[in-house]
């Protein structure tokens, strides 16, 4: 009995000494370690990025009312990462600047034919028809707001995933008519990603379309342009699509403000990037004629 008590005492003393030593070491390491942010970041580490991606994909599955083709399924299409939900924001831009969409053909692709009777029977118990929430989904009831929780979860887990903020802002402001919420969410994203040109671009879009504050929108776009040059310029493969959008919107807003000179300047920049330079050239000619 006495021996056991002695062993227990020895173990407790050892634990105490090791704890003191570890605490000392931890304080030294903490100085060298990068500052950790939220509790979530500390607990989950980099795995939160994976979960962030998963929740973003989940939002896309919700956009298709539960319909998705798994990794085991056919290779015709998949909805992970940037699916149609994200594509919709890009389509919107294509429509604005080029007058057509690139996704139309693939959007209504059907799933592969069932391989056997089990698969054919099983398809009756889960969504196996391709629908879009913004077109009403399976019950023709517009419920696009249902994607929002997963986008919010995704942003909470991975605050550096820019697409989450821009896609959410698009749906909130353009489809759900909640520009204030969209702006607040974008500002949250801007806080986590200071000076991000994509977020600044979305903010300018809200300022122009919802607040009708063209001066503010132009200021934001000019800042986005400067940040694009700073952040994307040095990259091997910069995001030129975003640059096109920035120049395009700057030209549009400057035209609306009656500053044709500046608008023409931006359109000339856009022409060198656009896949449809002839359409941009036409806009330049129109503006020059109006000026005369």
């Amino acid at each position, binding site marked *: 009995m006495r021996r056991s008590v002695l062993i227990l005492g020895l173990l407790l003393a050892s634990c105490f000494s090791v704890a003191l030593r570890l605490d000392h070491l931890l304080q030294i390491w903490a100085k060298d370690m990068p500052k950790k942010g939220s509790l979530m970041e500390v607990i989950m580490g980099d795995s939160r990025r994976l979960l962030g991606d998963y929740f973003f994909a989940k939002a896309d599955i919700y956009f298709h009312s*539960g319909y998705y083709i798994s990794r085991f399924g056919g290779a015709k299409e998949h909805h992970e990462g940037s699916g149609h939900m994200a594509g919709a924001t890009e389509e919107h831009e294509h429509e604005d600047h080029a007058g057509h969409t690139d996704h139309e053909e693939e959007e209504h692709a059907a799933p592969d034919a069932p391989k056997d009777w089990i698969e054919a029977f099983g398809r009756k118990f*889960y969504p196996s028809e391709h629908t879009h929430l913004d077109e009403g989904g399976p*019950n023709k009831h517009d419920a696009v707001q249902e994607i929002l929780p997963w986008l919010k979860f995704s942003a909470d887990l991975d605050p550096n995933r820019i697409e989450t903020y821009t896609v959410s802002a698009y749906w909130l402001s353009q489809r759900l008519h909640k520009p204030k919420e969209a702006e607040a969410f974008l500002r949250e994203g801007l806080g986590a990603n200071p000076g991000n040109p994509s977020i600044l671009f979305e903010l300018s879009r809200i300022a122009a379309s919802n607040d009708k504050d063209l001066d503010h929108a132009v200021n934001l776009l000019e800042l986005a342009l400067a940040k694009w040059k700073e952040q994307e310029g040095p990259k091997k493969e910069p995001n030129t699509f975003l640059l096109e959008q920035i120049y395009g919107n700057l030209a549009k807003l400057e035209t609306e403000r009656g500053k044709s000179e500046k608008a023409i300047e931006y359109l000339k920049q856009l022409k060198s990037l656009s896949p449809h330079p002839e359409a941009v050239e036409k806009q330049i000619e129109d503006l020059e004629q109006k000026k005369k």
Partner: protein
Amino acid sequence: MFSRINAIAGVTIKELYRRKDFYVIFVFTVLIALIFASINFFNDTNIVRYLKEITLLLIWIASLTIAISTAARQIPAEKESRTIFPLLAKPITRTEFLLGKFLGSWLACGIALLVLYGFLALLARTRDDSWHLLNYFQAASLHWVMLGIIVAFVIFGSLVFAAPSSNGTITFILAVGILLLGRHLNSVALGLSEPGRTIVYTIYYLIPHLEFFDLRDLLVHSWPLVAWGTWALAIVYAALYVAVFLTAASLVFRKKPLI
């Protein structure tokens, strides 16, 4: 015969509400669901699908836990407490005893599901524009039928595996595995070379496809009802597997010494 099976089943059902497991699981499910319900997403009060999905996931986990834990301890507990001897000394066959245990466990799962789906319907109705009662009925009934397959398998397992814990763990892993991967095994098989392809395809045809009974996605995303003929066929499919597992259990139990 039916009165004897009912008597045994009645005892099993009483066990469910005497034990505290179900109450704890139910309170946890309600608490977690209410926490998720209290989150504000961009001041939109009509968002309901994420809530349905999370609550349904909790219900599925809860029901699997209840089904496996209830069924797994039935026969071992009777053996351990030696109450199986006076029970089988009465004019009751071993098959009737097994059927009673199966029916009791399955009905206990049904009662638990009724409460859990009732809570889900109430919670969803606070944000949804209609009750969708038939959709809930289809989802809950197929869920219950699926639990029948699991209960039958667990009862068979309790005669084959050494302890209730191993039986429960194996069943849980198999059930979750089938639910997640069952419907993709054919695609996996096609990507393999022989003999792997034949082996995986054989497994694909042999296993009970529990995913047939999982209507969560249809319920969450407000899809129309499954055709009633299809619903009935799924029940027949489940009944066949229940019969297979109970027959196997009966054959094992008849030859198995009680000590």
